[in-house]
């Protein structure tokens, strides 16, 4: 986009080639002296000096290509006119970027480009945002002499007419039948078009797909004049190809050849706001580009420190839900859940909610109500919700969706390292030599970070994948795992302990690190424990299914291969031994000395955009913000002073405990912000029973989600585009979320919470979310240095950010662990209670797919559903064959908890005996299958291990039919009273 359309700083310029690190080199460019690191290109050095060399095939997010020949320069003492993008600087070099010679060459090059480009600039969607147009102007091109030559475009606007086409009958000559070289647009992708006639074959899209995204879906097909971008095999369109729709190619395209459909439809945006994505825990920064208050497109922000200018199909394109017709914008209430909703004004809704909640406390006690905070909401919003329960309800009944995802991370890393967070920033992976990836599928769930990981793997790092499925990082384009350990679900602890066993018994640990940084006595106890032969790979092989020799080799590689980093996800935490596995992972990192510097560390990949933040903000029932237990008098004193109320010194109820207590009759009211526990939490029937037993359920959300089927009050929520606040991503980075447009419902979510609190007598008077952050900083030591002013100045900071760490903390535990000495803890394997057997012989594990996000409330309401419109059951061919199940067939999936129907997808990605599905679609309700077994320490549900049977189906289950009928009944809305 041109500067006159969206004001941009100098820093937003494309510098042509990537930055380098190296010794300083001084040269002159057009007489100006410039000093840059060794290895920098002449093009970039010129840009550093403020001189823009014309270019088409170069871009600073990919390596130089040297094909367009537009960036030629003259260098004193050298022959010819080298391309400035591929020529590195040298000491004393004297460069001329403008001379009659290079001007003539550039003009000739541009003339050739333009000769095969439709000159429809005024009506072109890229008008004003086209590098080809800019370069034609920059080189002073005023005409072109090759008008009668061959070209690829469509001057008659008819495409290529076949001889029999009815439109051809009116044409007189063969030429009038259209241009035989013309290739029609590929409109298959829902978000962008590919117009071959506007392609200049600069290969930027192909290189972006390779270097930035790492998918290798695109190529240049044909030679010479026939060369055109192709999405895979001849005849493949973009949707049929391996393209993952990350948008990198569209962003790289210098013309309108690859163009967002939204730009074609809505025109070029005129303003932009930098904000943070609301999907996964990577927390990508984006420029939201608008016309007025209409969002035209989301462009990954070049200076976003989490994403470094990259994006995925969700963040880049899947924002259409914000204006979806299903959005509820008026508050609604009803006395009973079998009644239709009544639209009311905010006052009536909030008074109704407040009176009901206070009434419940009067009848059933002050601990009879609670809240669930949202990991999709901002830190400020989450802080207020937990404050609502602690300061207004007078109890600690607050929990968050992290309960069902990363609560074991909090416990495990808290016990071993002393803090509940990942140790590294994302940039750290650039220095990693060996990655252990366990229980995570980043190409689907954290795609932008996966691209960075793949880039590092292509540069030579090695990866060990521990997962029951052959995920993409086991083998995909230019990626091959050194070891894939396909463990049986539920045996993480045994595998991690076996890795440690090999490292300890073969003497591969980093003794110097352990002696200096860890408690030696605890290590000695641990070493004795882990050396026992029962933890050996040979002893655990029968249990885990992982070949002992592979595991041994993997352990040796991790211990001796250089910088070792461990990345993990919900495949670690969502087990009955989730916390024990996290502890085991921490043990592995300490054993090998892989803590406290770049390239190493323990890195939980957080599921939702603000899981880290929601945990930081005191969402858990036993902790105040900053992970400080409510039992500590000194911590409660801080809040008593600031909030003016006594804080309960006893832990509150966790989500599963709330539901149990509801069924029992002692928990009666819930304020649930931005979560859909009926779809996302395990054992759906039990969740439904708990919600049905409550007398006041307040759902604060964008849509009438599944939980709202059991709600009495619906408070409309705002999308991330309407929010002002901060998100904290998986690397502890606090990023600003800026209001792109005003909340459609009239209030930001923090304002709604404040209104509810005040309706209950709180007397809060925040007027801006920055005041909430100021209160967080005032009361939370790890946030003491955080303010909106600091975030504006620095872009983002990683906590701890305080007097000791004024610039924030990219790497944790550099000079010592947060708790002092690192603590080794023994990790005995204990089998889950959930066993497969004759009735339920298979093990079900669940997860996400790239195009959908969690319960799908957002992504299902976008074109992302074109990739994934239903949950499928992945099953190994052998298991399918045994049951006579064919690909695409409807099947019944049954467990001890319940049964559902969905279609089968036969896949060799699965191990035999293990099946897999996603939980994105309420029609499937995969969680009717999962059980209420949970992590011993945190109650994090055991989503990843459910014994199931798969059989033929002849239609929806009775439960599905009853559920759908109840949901339809519950969603009736009466029109508002006049």
């Amino acid at each position: 986009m041109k500067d006159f359309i969206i004001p941009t700083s100098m820093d937003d310029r494309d510098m042509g080639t990537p930055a380098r690190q190296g010794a300083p080199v001084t040269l002159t460019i057009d007489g100006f002296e410039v000093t840059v690191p060794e290895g920098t290109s002449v093009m970039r050095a010129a840009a550093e000096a403020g001189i823009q060399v014309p270019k088409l095939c170069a871009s600073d997010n990919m390596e130089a290509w040297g094909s367009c020949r537009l960036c030629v320069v003259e260098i004193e003492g050298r022959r010819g006119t080298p391309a400035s993008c591929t020529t590195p600087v040298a000491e004393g070099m004297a460069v001329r970027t403008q001379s009659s010679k290079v001007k003539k060459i550039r003009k000739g090059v541009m003339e050739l480009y333009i000769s095969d480009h439709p000159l429809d600039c005024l009506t072109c969607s890229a008008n004003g945002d086209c590098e080809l147009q800019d370069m034609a102007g920059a080189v002073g091109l005023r005409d072109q002499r090759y008008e009668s030559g061959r070209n690829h475009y469509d001057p008659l606007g008819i495409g290529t007419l076949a001889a029999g086409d009815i439109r051809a009958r009116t044409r007189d000559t063969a030429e009038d039948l259209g241009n035989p070289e013309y290739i029609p647009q590929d409109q298959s992708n829902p978000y962008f078009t590919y117009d071959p006639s506007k392609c200049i074959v600069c290969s930027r899209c192909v290189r972006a797909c390779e270097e930035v995204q790492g998918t290798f879906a695109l190529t240049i097909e044909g030679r010479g004049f026939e060369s055109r971008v192709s999405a895979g095999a001849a005849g493949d369109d973009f949707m049929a190809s391996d393209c993952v729709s990350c948008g990198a190619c569209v962003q790289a395209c210098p013309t309108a050849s690859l163009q967002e459909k939204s730009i074609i439809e809505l025109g070029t945006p005129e303003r932009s706001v930098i904000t943070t994505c609301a999907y996964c825990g990577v927390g990508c920064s984006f420029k939201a580009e608008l016309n007025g208050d209409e969002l035209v497109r989301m462009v990954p922000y070049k200076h976003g420190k989490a994403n470094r200018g990259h994006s995925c199909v969700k963040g880049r394109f899947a924002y259409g839900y914000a204006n979806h017709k299903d959005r509820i914008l008026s508050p609604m209430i009803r006395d009973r859940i079998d009644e239709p909703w009544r639209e009311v004004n905010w006052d009536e809704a909030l008074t109704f909610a407040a009176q009901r909640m206070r009434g419940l406390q009067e009848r059933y006690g002050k601990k009879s109500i609670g809240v669930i905070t949202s990991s999709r909401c901002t830190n400020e919003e989450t802080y207020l919700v937990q404050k609502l329960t602690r300061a207004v309800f007078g109890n600690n009944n607050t929990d968050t969706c992290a309960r069902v995802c990363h609560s074991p991370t909090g416990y495990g890393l808290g016990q071993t390292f002393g803090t509940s967070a990942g140790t590294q920033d994302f940039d750290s992976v650039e220095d990693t030599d060996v990655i252990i990836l366990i229980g995570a599928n980043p190409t689907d769930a954290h795609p932008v970070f996966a691209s960075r990981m793949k880039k590092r793997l292509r540069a030579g790092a090695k990866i060990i994948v521990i997962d029951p499925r052959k995920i993409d990082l086991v083998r995909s384009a230019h990626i091959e795992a050194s070891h894939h350990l396909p463990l049986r679900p539920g045996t993480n602890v045994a595998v991690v302990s076996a890795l440690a066993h090999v490292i300890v018994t073969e003497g591969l640990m980093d003794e110097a690190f352990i002696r200096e940084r860890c408690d030696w006595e605890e290590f000695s106890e641990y070493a004795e424990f882990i050396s026992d032969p029962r933890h050996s790979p040979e002893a655990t092989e029968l249990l885990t299914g992982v070949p002992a020799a592979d595991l041994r080799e993997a352990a040796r590689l991790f211990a001796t291969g250089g910088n070792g980093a461990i990345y993990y996800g919900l495949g670690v935490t969502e087990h009955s031994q989730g916390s024990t596995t996290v502890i085991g992972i921490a043990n592995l990192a300490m054993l090998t000395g892989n803590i406290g510097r770049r390239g190493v560390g323990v890195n939980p990949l957080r599921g939702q955009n603000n899981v880290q933040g929601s945990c930081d903000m005191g969402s858990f029932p036993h902790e105040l913000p900053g992970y400080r237990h409510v039992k500590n008098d000194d911590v409660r004193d801080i809040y008593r002073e600031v909030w003016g109320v006594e804080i309960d010194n006893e832990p509150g109820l966790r989500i599963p405990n709330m539901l149990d207590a509801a069924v029992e009759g002692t928990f009666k009211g819930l304020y649930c912000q931005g979560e859909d526990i009926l779809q996302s939490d395990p054992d759906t029937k039990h969740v439904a029973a708990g919600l049905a037993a409550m007398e006041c359920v307040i759902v604060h959300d964008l849509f009438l989600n599944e939980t709202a089927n059991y709600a009495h009050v619906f408070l409309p929520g705002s999308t991330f585009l309407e929010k002002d606040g901060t998100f904290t991503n998986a690397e502890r980075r606090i990023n600003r979320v800026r209001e792109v447009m005003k909340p459609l419902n009239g209030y930001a979510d923090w304002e709604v919470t404040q209104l509810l609190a005040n309706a209950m007598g709180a007397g809060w008077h925040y007027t801006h979310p920055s005041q909430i952050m100021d209160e967080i900083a005032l009361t939370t030591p790890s946030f003491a240095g955080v303010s909106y002013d600091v975030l504006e100045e620095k872009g983002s900071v990683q906590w701890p950010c305080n007097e000791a760490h004024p610039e924030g903390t990219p790497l944790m535990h550099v000079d010592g662990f947060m708790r002092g000495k690192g603590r080794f803890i023994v990790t005995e394997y204990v089998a889950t209670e959930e066993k497969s057997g004759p009735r339920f012989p298979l093990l079900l594990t669940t997860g996400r797919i790239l195009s959908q996000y969690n319960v799908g409330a957002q992504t299902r309401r976008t074109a992302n559903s074109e990739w994934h419109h239903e949950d499928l059951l992945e099953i190994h061919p052998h298991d399918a064959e045994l049951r006579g199940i064919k690909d695409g067939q409807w099947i019944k999936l049954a467990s001890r908890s319940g049964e559902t129907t969905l279609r089968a997808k036969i896949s060799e990605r699965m191990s035999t005996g293990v099946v897999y599905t996603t939980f994105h679609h309420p029609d499937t309700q995969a969680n009717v299958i999962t059980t209420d077994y949970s992590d011993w320490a945190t109650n994090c549900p055991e989503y990843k291990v459910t014994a199931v049977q798969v059989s033929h189906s002849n239609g929806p289950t009775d439960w599905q039919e009853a559920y759908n009928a109840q949901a339809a009944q519950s969603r009736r809305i009466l029109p508002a009273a006049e």
Partner: protein
Amino acid sequence: MQPDKLVMMANQIATYFATQPGTDQAERVAAHLNDFWEPRMRAKLSHHYENGGTGMSQLAREAMAFIRVPAD
């Protein structure tokens, strides 16, 4: 809140701490329950224990001596 579920959860916690070195496992089980279980859950488990503690593991039973049960 059903006693059988609380017993299962308490036994899980006890199973973990039973594997830990030292001689204070019962105290550590109790500390975990005191730190993470809401008082009515502890009270319910305590009540179950006082009524025979069906299903409770030995270590879970031993931990009950250190459980903090609220007066109300």
